């Protein structure tokens, strides 16, 4: 297992899933997009699929997102049928850095990977993944490794 300098294992994301996530973020600009990351492994996390879901926060779609739990339930069920799991979620920050906000922290949950895609001016993207180790901890970055299938 490959560790980064902070001792946390990286999040491996297959290139097709990674590219799809970035494309979604650009297409949704200037609104926030969101999605569900599916893969395998609890410690050595490997994402094979990124699923687009609807941002149900239509009142504040430029700076907020909300995922309908029914969509998570349906994706979880199909993931399970394939022997996979929901490992985390992604969302975009239009014209805002790829770092979690206080509001992100307020809603962040221990154990999931939260990928944030920053989209500046609708085209320049940067991506980071964040995890919370314990309920009272802040988000800490986990390095993303893009992999080929």
């Amino acid at each position, binding site marked *: 297992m490959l560790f980064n300098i902070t001792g946390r294992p990286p999040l491996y994301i297959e290139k097709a899933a990674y590219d799809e996530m970035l494309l979604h973020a650009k297409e949704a600009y200037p609104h926030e997009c969101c999605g569900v990351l599916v893969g395998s492994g609890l410690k050595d996390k490997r994402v094979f699929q990124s699923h687009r879901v609807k941002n149900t*926060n239509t009142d504040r779609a430029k700076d*907020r*997102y*909300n995922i309908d739990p029914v969509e998570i339930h349906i994706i979880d069920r199909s993931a*399970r049928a394939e022997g996979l799991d*929901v490992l985390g979620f992604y969302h975009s920050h239009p014209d805002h850095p790829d770092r979690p906000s206080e*509001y992100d922290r307020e*809603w962040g*949950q221990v154990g*999931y990977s939260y990928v944030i895609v920053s989209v500046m001016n609708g085209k320049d993207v940067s991506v980071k993944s964040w995890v919370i180790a314990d309920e009272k901890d802040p988000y800490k970055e986990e390095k993303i490794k893009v992999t080929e299938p």
Partner: protein
Amino acid sequence: MPVKVRIPTPLRKITNGSDEVAAEGRNVAELLSDLEAKFPGLKERICEPDGKLRRFVNLYLNDEDIRFKKNMETELKDNDEVSIIPAIAGGF
């Protein structure tokens, strides 16, 4: 009254890695008590100290949110499936 409970990845440390566990109860409240007896620490990740569902968590009985049924009093029957689904939101 055995019910299957689907455990999301972050809570599997408490269920010794199991993604699905069996528990019993006539309703959701009893089911959660049985889960806590079997896997100490699980209930506090799902409920507030007063027993209400935490705002970060949704419980689905088969395909329906228990908040739209009778909440903790929602009755269960054999072979029902309860899923613990996270509430996901954010922004900047």
